[in-house]
């Protein structure tokens, strides 16, 4: 009997926690924000400021989202897009890390390559697309090429500067203790450069995401969120366009807020980069 009560109260406190988690300040203000946004949208729609074809109602867009999810267009499109993103990001990480390390190893190459990479980093990713189409063609590899070119330089540069800016005193102390070669690299240089590396990866991810949607719109491969967008434009289907935009926005938000911010916070906290305290 007693144990039952105990387990019951445990359940209650657990669900209480859950409710508290959902009803915290941030979530609440987000809900209010979205509601206000939808209300303004609905008002603009009802006032007929713009033709109804150009600006559908929130409800219509909601319906379109449901339809596109139910007939698997959006599900399939999201899956393909995320797969391309993952693949492109992975290739860029590998390439960027390797070239970044070579830049450290060969100083003159590093110097030249870094000014080159700074230029290419700010090069608009869309401008790679004609080049990719002629070089590779209308296929997945063409899209991947654009994605890689748009973000590999961020990874490269953050690897390079992260490793170069490791405080010399860490290296001195480690060498004094007997660390050298790979050990020094693996156990001192890499962890010391990690905060910079993570920041570079986050930037690279956002560049990759921008480039991917653009490439999917222009390099037609019949699948992907970018493709759904361009189909929407061709058939003047504003509901579909807005529905897809909402999905793209949500994915971006989830990755940035949930994945990268969490990792970065954890690392900054552990490395003590946010506190300038005690002493």
């Amino acid at each position, binding site marked *: 009997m007693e144990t039952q009560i105990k387990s019951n109260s445990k359940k209650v406190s657990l669900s209480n926690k859950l409710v508290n988690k959902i009803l915290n300040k941030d979530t609440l203000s987000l809900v209010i924000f979205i509601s206000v946004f939808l209300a303004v949208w609905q008002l603009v729609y009802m006032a007929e400021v713009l033709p109804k074809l150009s600006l559908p109602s929130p409800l219509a867009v909601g319906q379109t989202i449901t339809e596109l999810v139910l007939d698997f267009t959006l599900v399939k499109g999201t899956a393909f897009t995320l797969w391309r993103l993952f693949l492109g990001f992975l290739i860029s990480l590998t390439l960027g890390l390797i070239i970044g390390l070579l830049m450290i190893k060969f100083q003159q190459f590093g110097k030249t390559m870094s000014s080159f990479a700074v230029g290419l980093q700010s090069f608009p990713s869309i401008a790679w697309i004609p080049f990719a189409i002629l070089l590779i063609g209308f296929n997945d590899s063409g899209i991947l090429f654009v994605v890689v070119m748009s973000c590999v330089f961020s990874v490269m540069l953050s690897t390079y500067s992260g490793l170069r800016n490791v405080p010399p005193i860490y290296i*001195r*102390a480690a060498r*004094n*203790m007997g660390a050298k070669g790979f050990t020094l690299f693996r156990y*001192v240089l890499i*962890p010391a450069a990690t905060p910079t590396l993570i920041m570079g990866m986050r930037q690279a991810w956002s560049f990759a995401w921008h480039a991917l949607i653009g490439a999917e719109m222009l390099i037609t491969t019949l699948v992907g969120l970018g493709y759904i967008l361009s189909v929407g434009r061709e058939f003047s289907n504003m509901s579909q366009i807005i529905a897809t935009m909402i999905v793209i926005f949500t994915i971006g938000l989830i990755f940035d807020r949930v994945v990268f911010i969490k990792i970065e916070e954890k690392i900054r906290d*552990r490395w*003590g980069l946010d506190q300038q305290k*005690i002493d």
Partner: protein
Amino acid sequence: MMQFKNQSSSHQKVFLSLKNVSKKYAQRNSESNTVLENINIQILDGEIVTILGKSGCGKSTLLNLIAGFENSFGGEILLNGKPVKDISPERIMMFQESALFPWLTAFQNVEFALKMAKVPKYQREKQAKHYLKTVGLSDYSNSYIHQLSGGMKQRVSLARALSLNPKILLMDEPFAALDITIKKTLYKELLNLHKKTRKTILFVTHNINEAVLLGDRVIVMSPRLYGIKKEYAIDIPKDQRDDNLSIKNIINQITADLYDNA
């Protein structure tokens, strides 16, 4: 054989010996900048020698040379009769700022040193705990470095240095950034540890009190001479040096030495 016996019977043997050590830095305008000239120092096994000087007198450079961080210099540095070359865990340096790794806990920092010394994994935990206990930080072994106060950081540094069982401990103003009460505690702890381990310590500082409280000998450096100005052997027991009249006299003499501009 006879000679060997003779040497060891002379009461204490020279452990670290600097012979005519000089150091110049190349400058842009091709004139070289002399930092140290003809330094001769002999340090006995188990001794604490403090090197005292104002900033810019080359005292840290001297320590860097002994640690092997810089390999081009004139003269000879011998440890146990063998020339010092390159960096080695035999000669561990403790820096003014904490050189601990912020991505590791206090315990992991000490363990890292043991790992570098190739201590087998199953022994590392026990040893790391032991050294943290030695410096009184058992309760903080799982704290990250930024969670520790300045004094605690230097204690972890000390634990890390001791865990490598160096032949000589080189301390480059390790307590300079700490406030006076913490300094006093750390002096006591350092002296206690020295009593237990009898490690040879070379301690560089610009603080006269510190130099006189800790050293068996105090070497006063002069920036003008690029080298040693005077040397004081202090034979007052270290636990009686607080508020001691002759210690005060020595401090006054050294103060005069430091400020007479030669």
